């Protein structure tokens, strides 16, 4: 970089102007010596240094100017989180829509009850969402219904129109019971379906729709649990203002087999692709 005649090169002078040389280094001292012996070089270097300082001065005020709120990292971070949540919700909606489409279009409805089939599909999908994990449940101080012996309620999540109960069955297996209100009170027997690694048994009792979701391959146990749980009378999900109490449809219950009697469960496996 430096010349053999001890005169600094153009690059040395440039580096000197830009503060790239260590004051303790030989090159730095060589440039200083050259400036003492060469007034033209000294003037050029000083001119470059003056320009450099002037440039810094010209923009210095920007460093002290107040920062607009829109550049606040905390605000930007919060906005990004909101955007991420919206994207996630949109993705979940797409998944739900696709799942619903697959479940509903892949086979004829098993019950002829479109509302019940749709509810079962929603319950299946909701049970596979991370938000359905029991740790996010509302703590249960007072169970909203008397449960059959051996069942334990570990948590409740209220979605818009659906209540999701997290239960432990008599053998300690986790179950999810989805409950919704219907505008058309009637009764339907137990039906079953499966999707992914989940299995669902669903039924209708009066103006309540039920879907009991468990792990795939536990249909027998799930059906037994559904029979036991078919007798409960839960309150309506929070978001729905039902006008008719559950007891208004007691007559309909006659068509549901009592828990002690043999129940014919028309279990037809849904032919849904995974």
């Amino acid at each position, binding site marked *: 970089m430096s010349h053999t005649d001890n005169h600094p090169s*153009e690059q040395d002078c440039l580096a000197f102007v830009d503060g790239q040389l260590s004051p303790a280094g030989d090159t730095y001292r060589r440039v200083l010596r050259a400036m003492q012996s060469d007034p033209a070089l000294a003037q050029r270097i000083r001119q470059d240094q003056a320009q450099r300082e002037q440039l810094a001065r010209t*923009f*210095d005020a920007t460093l002290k100017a107040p920062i607009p709120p829109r*550049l606040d990292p*905390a605000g930007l971070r919060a906005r990004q989180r909101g955007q991420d949540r919206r994207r996630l919700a949109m993705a979940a909606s797409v998944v739900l829509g696709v799942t619903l489409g697959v479940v509903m279009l892949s086979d004829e409805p098993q019950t002829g009850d479109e509302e019940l089939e749709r509810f079962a599909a929603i319950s299946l999908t909701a049970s596979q969402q991370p938000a359905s994990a029991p740790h996010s449940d509302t703590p249960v101080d007072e169970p909203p219904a008397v449960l059959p012996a051996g069942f334990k309620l570990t948590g409740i999540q209220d979605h818009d129109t659906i209540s999701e109960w997290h239960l432990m069955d008599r053998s300690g297996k986790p179950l999810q019971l989805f409950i919704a209100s219907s505008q058309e009170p009637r009764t339907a027997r137990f039906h079953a379906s499966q999707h992914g690694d989940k299995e669902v048994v669903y039924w209708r009792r009066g103006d309540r729709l039920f879907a009991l979701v468990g792990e795939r391959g536990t249909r027998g146990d799930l059906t037994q649990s559904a029979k036991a749980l078919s007798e409960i009378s839960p309150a309506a999900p929070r978001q729905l203002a039902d006008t008719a109490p559950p007891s208004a449809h007691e007559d309909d219950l006659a068509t549901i087999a009592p828990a002690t009697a043999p129940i014919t469960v028309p279990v037809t496996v849904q032919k849904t692709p995974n």
Partner: protein
Amino acid sequence: MTRQGEFDALLGEEIPHLRRYALALTGSAHRADDLVQDCLERALRKWRLWNPASRLRSWLFRMLYRQYLNSLRGQKRRPELTLADEQLPEVAVPARHGAQRECEELLSDMAKLPEAQRNALWLVALEDMSYAEAAWVLNIPIGTLRSRLARGRDSLRARHQPDETVQPAVTTHLRSVR
């Protein structure tokens, strides 16, 4: 404080420097802040890619410079820098008459330089970066940076003669002239 929290705090400290560099690049306070906002948003998303052993400012400047180049693709021309424009109300410069005129001349001369030379000068002369750092930000070899600086300085020296009677600061404003 979490690692993300520490990053956000460090990021906040770099904002004035990002704004200054963006202003030098764009010549417009509004465009500069838009560019800085884009850069900050990107940095907040990519914060895990930053190596704490390296200088955050260089990492951010490189990001900002790339975004600036991207933004240029949709534009035919960039505004030239000069002084005294209400478009840049928050950018103040030292400006008693002599100093103001000098600043104006210097910015005008800078604006006449080829973009590559000007960008090299912004980083080294304005932001006080090392050659290695500036070359990394601009994604060019260090030798290329040196030659751009040398040519830029030659041009400035030929065009601009500084007034030795620079006075202390009074506030005025920058503007861009199309």
